[in-house]
């Protein structure tokens, strides 16, 4: 059984209450940090741990903290990004529902490290039950003296607030989140300045994902060096993966980074294989924004080595043959699934969620969605496929925030790897409405020459 750090006590009844959480060793990190460590020591430990942001970009958390500007007399803020709304990702919701105190403990330690006196947890508006759970947990923690004035007699004060969002995907982008938290329209800001210099109310701010903050707790408990021993290479520690799709046992799993993808899909400890005895056709490895990969490239790298669940191994081969870790939303498609339909579905999501601030994303996402709708419903033309590639190239990299890239990558990658299926939809408009293209050659072992490195 692999090591579990975040979900170790997930099955203990009543772990969502402070008492049980304390019995299982909860809030040790707060005691250790506030009584024995200085804020800089905490930052140092997190740096040593090599923890990388769990929200999608994978930026080293310790580095992000050390970039925080610390001018005299200006408040600093820590904001927890719990606006989890990527299709396929539901790990933060799981964590907040079952172990809310892990997040709160992490918030106290992280706020202490950053010198924040006020911290916010920005939760997506649809997650009302989780907001209630967090509010209750905060009240408990406050009553026990882990929040509020003079925490544990250390002289450190912290107020923690939960802020429900309006349910917009774009508010998961850190600057849009800050705008929304300030009570404005959730449009991403133009960077620079970065939030580390001017964030919430113009003050230096750090925005971290729920899982990154919760991961600070085991780092402090066991020291950064110990944490860095788990995992592989620069992907240290454990990661929550929310597995969904045609799997025998979909759900949230904590894995040690470096686990082979094949083991994750087929091992009984994790997903238990593809449901109903079907074969795997394709996967989206890290939430809807990352490139989709056919089964053969999911399990093996282009050079034939097994692909591992780590930041480096998943992105091995760039976008030609690789994908990204993203936020850990692992979606598996079996042989009966239609990639065109799925791409249209993702595209529909990005069209709906684009904030409309910058033109390539506002107009381009709608355009892609319409073309894909046409292809999926049997009215497409051969030229539409190249048009989609061209439009996605015009969006990618030309927008204010990464939503444009996130909208362009799934479309571009689907056409890169599944062009046959798109062409089949054009050639067989009627048949494509009734049957699926099937698995074709997407699960066959890769012969090197077949890998299309163009586009």
């Amino acid at each position, binding site marked *: 059984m692999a090591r579990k750090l975040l979900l170790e006590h997930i099955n203990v009844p009543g772990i969502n209450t402070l008492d049980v959480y304390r019995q299982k060793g909860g809030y040790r990190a707060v005691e250790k940090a506030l009584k024995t460590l200085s804020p800089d020591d905490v930052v140092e430990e997190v740096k040593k741990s090599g923890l990388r942001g769990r929200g999608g970009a994978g930026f080293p958390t310790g580095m992000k903290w050390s970039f925080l500007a610390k001018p005299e007399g200006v408040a600093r803020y820590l904001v927890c990004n719990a606006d989890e709304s990527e299709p396929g990702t539901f790990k933060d919701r799981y964590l907040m529902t079952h172990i809310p105190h892990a997040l709160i403990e992490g918030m106290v330690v992280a706020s202490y490290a950053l010198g924040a006196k006020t911290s916010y947890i920005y939760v997506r508006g649809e997650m009302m039950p989780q907001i209630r759970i967090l509010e209750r947990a905060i009240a408990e923690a406050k009553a026990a003296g882990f929040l509020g004035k003079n925490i544990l007699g250390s002289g450190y004060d912290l107020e923690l607030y939960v802020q429900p969002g309006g349910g917009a995907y774009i508010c998961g982008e850190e600057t849009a989140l800050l705008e929304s938290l300030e009570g404005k329209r959730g449009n991403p800001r133009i960077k620079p300045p970065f939030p580390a210099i001017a964030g919430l109310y113009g003050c230096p701010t750090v925005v971290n994902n729920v899982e990154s903050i919760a991961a600070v707790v085991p780092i402090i408990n066991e020291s950064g060096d110990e944490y860095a021993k788990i995992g592989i290479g620069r992907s240290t520690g454990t990661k929550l993966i929310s597995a969904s799709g045609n799997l025998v046992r979909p759900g949230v799993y904590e894995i040690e980074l470096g686990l082979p993808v094949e083991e994750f899909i087929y091992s009984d400890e994790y997903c238990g294989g593809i449901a109903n005895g079907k074969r795997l056709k394709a996967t989206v490895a890290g939430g809807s924004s990352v490139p989709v990969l056919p089964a053969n490239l999911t399990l093996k790298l282009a050079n034939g080595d097994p692909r591992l669940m780590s930041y480096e191994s998943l992105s091995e081969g760039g976008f030609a043959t690789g994908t990204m870790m993203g936020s850990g939303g692992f979606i598996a498609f079996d042989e009966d699934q239609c990639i065109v339909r799925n791409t249209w579905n993702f595209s529909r999501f990005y069209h709906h969620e684009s904030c409309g601030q910058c033109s390539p994303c506002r107009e381009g*996402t709608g355009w892609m969605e319409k073309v894909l709708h046409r292809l999926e419903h049997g009215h497409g033309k051969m030229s539409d496929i190249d048009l989609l590639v061209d439009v996605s190239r015009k969006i990618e990299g030309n927008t204010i925030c990464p939503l444009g890239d996130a909208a362009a990558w799934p479309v571009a990658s689907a056409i890169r790897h599944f062009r046959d299926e798109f062409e089949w939809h054009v050639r067989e408009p009627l048949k494509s409405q009734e049957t699926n293209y099937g698995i074709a050659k997407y699960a066959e072992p890769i012969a090197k020459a077949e890998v299309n490195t163009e586009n």
Partner: protein
Amino acid sequence: MSEKVKVTIDGITVEVEPGTTILNAARQIGGDIVPPAMCYYSKLEGSGGKCRTCIVKVSKGSEKDPRPMPKLVASCRTTVMDGMEVQNITSPEVMEARAGVVEILLINHPLDCPVCDQAGECDLQNLGYEHGLQKTRYEFERRTFERIDIGDKIQLHMNRCILCYRCVFTADQITNKRVHGILNRGDHSEISTYIQTAVDNDFSGNVIDVCPVGALTDKTFRFKNRVWFTKPVDAHRDCPTCSGKVTLWYKGADVLRVTARKDIYGEVEEFICNTCRFDRKKTDDWVIEHPTHISDASVISSNHYETMIPLPVIQENLRLQKANKVELEKTAKF
């Protein structure tokens, strides 16, 4: 004064104040290398970064850190660093991306230039002329909205809007209380007032001037004439609320419309009040200064009398001078 920084744009080096944006550095050089700007407006704080037409490639970050920037950047919101090297029209990548942005801006634009009051002085028209495709690749129904009257003098034609946010910034910064903003999101975003409230403000008319397209139009000028048939002259009056420095647009002896004076980048020099703009449309309200300078590239200049100096051949030939007596007298008047 702090030390100036050197920046090279398309091979031309210029020294600018630190903190200047690439776009403004390019404007100091002037000419073809200035990136087009649809949403940036130097008079409006916080504007820019949205339309993405001004994107450029930074091929060298700075003297200290010579790495190129990984993506194309919006020149209106990126500040220069010492030793930065920027490629605008010399980079095929930039030109391709800009053409892409123009195509994307036009897919939902109604292209109703023949009936649009902005035609002839429209930034999007110029941009489309320079970078656009001859034929659209967009084969779907374009997005449409109802027209909205913002007060009795301004009409909002949302179909034409490119959501540059300039009018929102204008209202934020020069009027007391902004009553319009952006509703909805994505490609359904629209500029709107809160339940169609009239914008009632002394300076609200300036949103017409800042609009780069024909989305906000002057109802006192609507469908009166094409701009290239009118002749602009600079004029002023003693106005208690604003500077009173305007451009009058004449057709014959009639003032068809009054706008603020604009510089070569189409940005107004000083915002004017609604009284000057909408209510003073007689020549005797104004002190006329001189014809407005119009760029040779503009379609308006084709009908413009500022350039009416006798050709060299006429100046030398007495017989031709006699024949052109009437025209020469006119010239002398100006």
